[in-house]
Structure formats: structure tokens, C-alpha cells
């Protein structure tokens, strides 16, 4: 198991390198000059050239890339073109907010979607199933920023129960979490339902029932555990999606997270900020994916054996 984990961790490195090349290339292709964006439209050629030299953006793209990656190896994420402050400080400052939001979203959506999914599968084609299906479709169809604004209008403006903006206290995370959870709940619930339906029809479930096991044990210990593999995969993928969705939601609720940092970085073509934010987010996602894969070993003994046989 240990070797498996180590191997997977090493695999993260080429993934991150690949991402860094893609992001860097995309940033280079964007048709604007960071110095021009910082100095404004009234700046002269000389001023722009001087600032470009200072930032290092007048050098060939490949050289800039290697400069950045070289710094990365020393734990230096570079300095923001706009604020000239170390990007590392910004990321450390903002990371907890985004991470906490993504974890909350994962916990809330899992806690709601799995029971609903199980119940829908057991009451297939019933009124309950129909209602939950419709709700799932609605939640998936709603754009997240619209949902966020609607929640804000209702709970902050009309009812005045919750604050509209901020990210310093737990209460600030309620609406953003609900917003991001919506689509997750929908997809996890559907995934749980279809996975369960497949498993329930299996022979070993019939055997367990025939042996007289209580229904609860049949469902949770036998059916659900076997149905969980695709669900856990979906949860992992949705975590990654939440990290991306956080960009919009943090902007709507004016939260101090990696999302707003990334958005501002893209707007001002602040290459170090964008590279660092994307790489950090990708690293988190790789680690979470690894944890998901490891969890398979705990859910399914066959898979655990596979991991261990790869000695």
C-alpha cells in the first residue's frame, strides 16, 4: 500500500508540469501586455518597456517559463506583477477559505445526496423518486452564480438572516456552500441511485435477504458498500469541480479565497499569480484524487489486494 501511495505521489509531478506548460502557453497567447495593463492606457512606450524589463516579461517565453519553474523548485512562487508582493503570501492567506469552502461543500453534498440517492433507488419510480429526480434536474440546470445571487437576495436582503459578503466567520460560508453544493447534490444523488439499483439486483443481495439479514444491514453493509465505488469517484471529481466553481462564487459573495485571486490574476495577466493559483489548486485536486483512490482500498477488499500485489 505504501509503495502504491508513493508511486501515485510521484505521478503528480509530471501532471503538474504538464498543467504548468498548458497554463503558461495560454497566458502567453493572450493578446495583452501586463506592463500596459498595470500602467494604464495613457502610458508611453518607454514606460512600458522599462516596466516590462523590471517584470521580466520582455524576455523570451521559454526563458520566462524556466525562470518561474526554477523558482518553484526553491519554493518561490514569484512576485505578483501587479502588487510586487510574493505570491506565496497571498496563497497562504487565501488558501484556507477556498479549501474550507470546498470541504464544506463536499461534506454537505455527500451527507444529503447519499441518503437521498439510496432512498430513491429503494423507491424506484415512486412519487418520491420522481420529485427527487425533478429537483436534481433543476439544481443541475441552475447556473451557480444565479443561484448564489438568488440566495443572497432572499436570505441577506429580504430576510436579513445572513450576511451578503465576507469570509471571516462561519456564517459567511452558509450561502456559498449551499450554492456550490446544489449541482453536486444532484449529480451525486443520481450516481448513488443508479449504482444502488445495479447492486440491489445482484444475487448476493438476494442471498443476504434469504439468509434473514435485517433490511438495514442488507442495504448499508452489503448494497451501499458495493455501490460506493462510482459514488466516491463522483465525489472526488466534484471536489475538483467545486474548486473551480469557487472562482465564481467567491466573486459573487466577495470572499477572500484563491478563486478571487485567480480571477484578478487572469484579468490583469498576472502570470505568476495565475500559474501559482492553478498549480496549487491542481495539487490539491491530485491529492484528493489520490485519497479517493486509496479509499477504494478500504471499501473494496479486492482492490486493496490489487494495490498490495503490485509489490
Amino acid at each position: 500500500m505504501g509503495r502504491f501511495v508513493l508511486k501515485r505521489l510521484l505521478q503528480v509531478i509530471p501532471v503538474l508540469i504538464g498543467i504548468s506548460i498548458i497554463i503558461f502557453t495560454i497566458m502567453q497567447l493572450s493578446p495583452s501586455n501586463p506592463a500596459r495593463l498595470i500602467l494604464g492606457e495613457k502610458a508611453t512606450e518607454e514606460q512600458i518597456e522599462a516596466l516590462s524589463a523590471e517584470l521580466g516579461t520582455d524576455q523570451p517565453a521559454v526563458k520566462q517559463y524556466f525562470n518561474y519553474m526554477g523558482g518553484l523548485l526553491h519554493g518561490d512562487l514569484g512576485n505578483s506583477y501587479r502588487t510586487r508582493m510574493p505570491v506565496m503570501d497571498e496563497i497562504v492567506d487565501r488558501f484556507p477559505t477556498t479549501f474550507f469552502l470546498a470541504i464544506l461543500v463536499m461534506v454537505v453534498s455527500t451527507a444529503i445526496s447519499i441518503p437521498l440517492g439510496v432512498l430513491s433507488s429503494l423507491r424506484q419510480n415512486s412519487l418520491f423518486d420522481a420529485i427527487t429526480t425533478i429537483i436534481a434536474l433543476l439544481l443541475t440546470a441552475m447556473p451557480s452564480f444565479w443561484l448564489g445571487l438568488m440566495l443572497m437576495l432572499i436570505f441577506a436582503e429580504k430576510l436579513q438572516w445572513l450576511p451578503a459578503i465576507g469570509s471571516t466567520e462561519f456564517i459567511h460560508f452558509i450561502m456559498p456552500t449551499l450554492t456550490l453544493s446544489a449541482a453536486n447534490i444532484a449529480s451525486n444523488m443520481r450516481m448513488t441511485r443508479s449504482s444502488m439499483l445495479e447492486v440491489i439486483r445482484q444475487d448476493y443481495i438476494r442471498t443476504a435477504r434469504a439468509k434473514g439479514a435485517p433490511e438495514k444491514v442488507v442495504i448499508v453493509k452489503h448494497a451501499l458498500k458495493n455501490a460506493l465505488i462510482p459514488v466516491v469517484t463522483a465525489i472526488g471529481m466534484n471536489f475538483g469541480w467545486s474548486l473551480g466553481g469557487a472562482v465564481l462564487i467567491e466573486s459573487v459573495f466577495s470572499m477572500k479565497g484563491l478563486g478571487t485571486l485567480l480571477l484578478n490574476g487572469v484579468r490583469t495577466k498576472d502570470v505568476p499569480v495565475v500559474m501559482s493559483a492553478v498549480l496549487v489548486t491542481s495539487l490539491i485536486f491530485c491529492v484528493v484524487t489520490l485519497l479517493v483512490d486509496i479509499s477504494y482500498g478500504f471499501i473494496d477488499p479486492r482492490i486493496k489486494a490489487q494495490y498490495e500485489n503490485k509489490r
Partner: protein
Amino acid sequence: MKNFKRMVAIVVTLAMTAALLGACGSKSKSTGEKKGESSRDSLVIGMAAEISTLDPHMHSNIGTANLMLAIFESLLTHDFVTDEIKPGLAESYEVSEDGMTIDMTLRTDFKFHNGDPVTMEDVLYSMERTMESAFQNVFWDAVDNVEAVDDTHLRFNLNQPDNNLPYYIADFANIVPKAVVEADPDGFARAPIGCGPYKFVNWSQGMQIDMEADPNYPDGEAPIKNVTWRFITDRSTALVALETGEVDAFMTMNGADFDQIRNTEGLTLKTVSGNNTYYLSLNMEDEVLSNDKVREAICLAIDKKSVIDGAEYGEAKIADHGFIREGQVGYSDNFKEAERDVERGKALLAEAGYANGLSLELKCQSSKTTHAQVIQANLKEIGIDVEIVQLENSAFYADLENGDFQMEFGGFGQYTPDPSSTFRYVYRSDGVMAGNYYRLNSPEIDELLARGEVSTDPEERQKIYEEVIQLVEDAHCCKYIYWPTANIAHNSDLKGVEATPVGEYDIYNYYW
């Protein structure tokens, strides 16, 4: 014996009273006088754009200057409501008759927030710093040097007269403490020390900046003690925050929200005509548009009011004099702008050889798509089919700089009320990068502008700029459409708030 005891008692009582009064007296001296009272001691004011530095010499954005206005002081003060120049750190200023020197007398009662007095050395250092700054050096072309005549007298020596200097001095040449900046310039940009009415307290990057009134400010402590500047990029969110009271004021709301704000009890919207101008530019170097008849036809087809009604919710003013507002140099009742005339437009197009119509491309920023659509509809009436290409800001400006466009819709803001500051960017043939996107190349206009910049005779300048404006109109390089509304929305209990054309808000005047 009894009398002696009484005497002692009286003396001791008197002494204690004297000591008490003395203590009270010195206490009130150290807290300083207040400019005025305020029933609440905190204010949260919101803005959409986040600033990237609190170093006053490392920006050229007038919007950013809002915070600088609170923390720092300049030699002169720009009253943004009336556009007057008033004393600042300099209690008086005098421009020589030939316009080649400016003399100022410094006040001696200003102190930086760390307690150090503001000295001539700090002033000279600050002026040198802004003149060398990549963001601001372009303002000081006319200045040869700044020298100290003595400890309290400052002199600007110019190489040519410049009518914009007082504004640049007021808006950008903030005075900073030399010792503090030299010791740690990067730290200074994050935690500045100035001598303005508010002290910097804390900066939560991307979220907010906190300030506190300086009790030792010579003109009186600001009425509101604690101010927080909150950055909220999404204006819908900003509106909700205003309504919930999480923000007490917000600068520059969307025109779409004006009615809602006006109808919300407890909120007030203040508006004034802004100093930006929005117009349609025609690339004179484009194959089709190099034909003056085509350009004139396009200009005749534009219906300014329809753009305002269709894209600005009716909340803008028709730009009927290009960049120049009433009261500014160059404004004239004799200015002749062609009125909308669709028939004549069609006729001109036919004369130019496009009787069967014409296809042109119009580039705009994504925030101006509706405006482009109205213009598209206007031009359809004279037989021009417009294809709209909307671009993200940086791509848009890149295309304008490279001349990679036929028509474009965009805006430009005045820096100062004097036309020379704007016209040097938008009309001079060597100013392409910064505003002359239509590639206007007129030796006659260049010569007039060069004369206007250095003239000190108000009558001569008025004639020069009137002529320039008329020549530009007749060149048909662009069609000025509207002046947007500058606005600030705020809690109705907050007093002293005024909307300003340039979007600068002096919180020193605010109180509850």
C-alpha cells in the same frame, strides 16, 4: 490654629483644582480639535476596483487616488466638485506672469502619522519621486526642477508654461516621509505613512483597507473615526450589501440599478455628469474609411439619444461638444456639429460609390455590446451592415494600438479640466498609442495644440481650442455620443456626500 487649618485647606483645594484644570487643559490639547461631530464613528465605503498599491507615486489611476486622498496630503488640493485648486500643504501658490515659475509657501503645522514634522526635505524628495515614477513622470514634462528657496519657500522652474500642473500636483504629487520610504519602499507601499486626515491601519489584500482618523490633523480631526474601504467586484452583490447595511456607500453603481436605489427607503443616489466621454472612432487609415464621405455619412447616421436610451438606461448626457464641458476652455456656443441626417448620409455613401450598401466591422469591449447594437441599428438606416466584434479589455486595446480595426466604440476620461491634458493624447499625430486610435494626422491641429500647451493668454487659448474642436468635427474621425453619469449610492443618514465628475470622494467631509 483653626484659621491656619482653614487656610491650608483652601490652598490645597485651590492647588488641586488648578492641577485638575491643568490636566484637563493639556488633555484637550493632545486630542486636537475635531472638524465636526458625527453620531456614528464608523463608515464602510465600497468600490469595485481593487487597488494594487498604497504607494501614491506608483499609480496613475484617479479612481485609486480616493484612498491616497485620505492618507496623504499634496501641496495643493483639488476640489472635485467645483474643479477649483485650493491650498494644501502649501498655504499659497503663485504662477509668474510668463508662466515659467510657480512659487509656494509651505505650512509648518503638518506632521506625518508617525509624529515626524513635514519638512522641505520631504517635499523635495516626494516631488523628485513622482517625477521619476514610471506611472507619473509623464505629468512633469514641463518641469525642469523643483528647488527650495528657503525652508518654507518652494519654487517650480518650468521649461514651458503648463496649465495642467496645479491639477497634477494636487492629484498625484502626494508628500511622503523621506526617511520611512527610503528605509523600506516595499513595506511603505503596503503600510503607508502620510500626513492626511486618515491614518492607515490595516490592509487585507483583495478585501478591505482600514483607516483611522488622525487626531492631530491640523485642520481638525475627521468627524468619522473609523473608515473601511471594501472591495466588491460584483455590482449586484454591492447593491445587496448596500441594502443590508454591510456597506454604507458604494461608488459607481450600474445604471440598471439607479431606479431600484432611488426607490429603496434609506438609500440615496447622488449623480453628476461624469468626465468620461464615449464615442465611435473611425480608423482613417482603413481602406474604406479613408474616404471622408464614408466617414461623414457614418457620423450623420448616429442617433445619440437612442444610444443613451437603449444602452445607458437614459442616464447619460448627450456629448454635444466633444470632450469639452461648459465652462471649460474651448467651449463655445458657436461650435457647429452636424445634426443627424439619414438622407444626406445615404446620399454621401452613394457619392462615395456605396449606393448598394456597405459592410463594416465594429469592435467594442464586452461591457459595451448593447451600445454597439444600437449603433448597428443606426447605421443600418443608411445601408451599412455592421458586424459587431466584442473583445475582452486587453485584446480590445491591443487591436486599437495596432490599428487592427475599422470602427470602435470606447471612452476616454479627462485628466484635468484643461483641454491640453486630453488633446495631447487624442488629437496629436504622435499620440497613437494612448488615444489617437483613429489615426488623425493633421499638421494644422498639431501646430495649434503645440501653441495651446504653452500659451498663457486665456483669450488666445480659447481661440486655439475652439479652432481645434471644429477641425476635429470636420475631419469626421469620430462621433462623440455621450457623457456617462458619475454616481455614488449611500445610506441616507450619511451626510456630506457629493457626486463628482471624476469619481473622487473626499471622506474628510463625511459625517453621520
